[in-house]
């Protein structure tokens, strides 16, 4: 019993259905479009939403990049890349500028995205209102009525309790002045990159069976208050121990010997490019 899989794993009918949902998502920026999420050969919660989007879009000329928490070489990124490469034969690359489709778990690359590129973000929890409303039936109504006082109240309570907004990654954003959206847990550092992005940004939640999108050149604003403005993670006075870069998102790593923390670019391909650029120059 030997079975060959179709190009990009899915049968053509499945791909078409996912593309239809994607088109709807692009037409209504920030709105979560339900779709019949398929079970994938990688686990639910491990990027199946992003993977389904990528597989439905990928064509033979595409160049694919997959990153997980900033790294091209993380086991999950390698695994997803391998599956797409085996079932499609497309070229894979680590270089952000070269890729036509970039699938990412929780980071927007440091190299600015260009027109014509597609960023596919993997989303575990697409519902930004879930923190205070467990029911899907209710949150759907809240979105329909643009009733977002709960989201503001959540941030307000954080300020009252901690003196600051205490969101980590996944700080909610307002898309095109209409829908409050979970930017997938990208760090706050990456939220501004969503605003008027030149690239198309697609977000896929496989287990929760939703896709949503930020089309190119769309206004995306992180929720905040006039007197408590939104702030990104601070890496002030820190520079990458490897390439010396500043003003990028860093990993904090403990030195085995001294026990002192040091910092390193989280975007490993960006760091590598810096290093190799230096060595060539």
């Amino acid at each position: 019993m030997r079975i060959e899989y179709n190009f990009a794993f899915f049968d053509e009918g499945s791909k078409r259905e996912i593309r239809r949902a994607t088109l709807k998502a692009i037409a209504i920026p920030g709105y979560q479009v339900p779709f019949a999420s398929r079970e994938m050969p990688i686990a639910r919660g491990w990027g199946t939403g992003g993977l389904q989007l990528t597989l439905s879009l990928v064509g033979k000329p595409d160049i694919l990049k997959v990153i997980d928490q900033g790294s091209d070489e993380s086991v999950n990124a390698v695994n997803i890349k391998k599956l797409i490469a085996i079932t499609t034969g497309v070229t894979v690359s680590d270089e952000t500028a070269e890729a036509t489709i970039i699938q990412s778990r929780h980071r927007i690359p440091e190299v600015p995205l260009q027109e014509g590129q597609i960023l596919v973000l993997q989303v575990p929890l697409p519902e930004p209102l879930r923190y205070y409303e467990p029911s899907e039936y209710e949150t759907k109504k809240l979105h329909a009525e643009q009733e977002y006082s709960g989201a503001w109240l959540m941030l307000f309570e954080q300020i009252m309790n901690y003196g600051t907004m205490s969101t980590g990654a996944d700080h909610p954003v307002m898309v095109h002045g209409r829908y409050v959206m979970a930017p997938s847990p990208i760090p706050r550092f990456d939220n501004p990159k969503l605003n008027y992005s030149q690239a198309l940004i697609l977000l896929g939640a496989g287990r929760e069976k939703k896709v949503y999108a930020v089309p190119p050149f769309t206004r995306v604003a992180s929720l905040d208050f006039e007197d408590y403005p939104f702030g990104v993670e601070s890496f002030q006075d820190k520079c990458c121990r490897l390439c010396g870069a500043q003003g990028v998102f860093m990993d904090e790593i403990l030195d085995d010997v001294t026990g002192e923390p040091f910092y390193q670019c989280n975007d490993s391909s960006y760091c590598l490019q810096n290093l190799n650029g230096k060595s060539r120059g």
Partner: protein
Amino acid sequence: MGYVAVKGGTLAIEESIKRLKYERLKKRVVLDCHKIEGGMRCLIDQVMSESSLYNETLAAMAIKQAEGSPEEAVFLMRAYRSTLPRKHYSRTVESEDMLVERRISASFKDIPGGQILGAANDYTHRLIDFNLNEETDEEAVNWIREYALENVVDQDKTDLTNLPKVLNYLREAGLLPSCERDNREPDDVTKESLQFPTSRSERLQILTRGQTGAVTSIGYIALRSYGALHPTVGELRIGKLPLHVDNPFNEQNEDEDAYYIGEIKVTEVETLFPEDIQKFTGQKEIEFSLGYGICYGQNETKAIAMSILDHCLETGNPEYPTHNEEFVLLHIDSVESTGFISHLKLPHYVTFQSKLDSVRKSKKGQVGQNMESNEELNP
């Protein structure tokens, strides 16, 4: 500085996969898929049911590859299922047409057609049979031959393909309201994602493909405490159902135009729940209402638990979480729950770094506030 390449993940993964294969083969014995099909009937039934894919051979292969882990085997089957185009829908199946292998009722001692115990663990003592350690294929062949001879003299003339449903008796006696036939096309949960409130066809599909343990546990909750229902099993039947599909080239199909494509073995359960009915006069009467459970293969606990949950979700009493359709339906799928729980093993460096930043800022903020209040106290 020379050219730097960050590599390692790829190689590490390859080694890990090799190690997994080693664990499967290290005793230098290969498990024969036919032997799995022969001796692991219940596991195969469970895997087929949870993966919504009826194929014993595939299930046996998945079980072999998963080294017997049901969650992993179901995962493999579901992923394979995603690659299959849906070409036909079967005709409506009537469970009266079942070729019955086992059929019991806890409501009535004497049921038309009789109680048929069939194959069940229920009547065994759960003592480990140490003889099984030495059992040979030859013994199996001999036993089967003798068993066949024993049954030659069977005089029973019961028509096993035409047994009446026990509940029809209650309907005829007016104790169970007869329900209208609902012949609407069922919603297909694998083609459209669940929207709330759900239709009954969607609920039944999600329940029947639910993880056996999860369906059983939540059913048990409804039985024991939250709602404390105690239903009676009106009828539990296990057997094979014939499947037919219409001729796809005909615009209209007569009864005889259908093609027989095979049969599936299922467990079907109808449970009865006593319920108060308020009459127009203000008086109350007690009537029975129904819970329905069905699943692939022989899995009686799951089918009974499903019938309890079907009734819970039909009732929808807001007091109990077991009556809340989002609570039940969104959390019982094996692939979804095991996938999301296992994703916690993935690196969360970025998200954790981000949270760390917030924690530090909140601590700074509080130090600042304390200092201010100190200043107020000691000007």
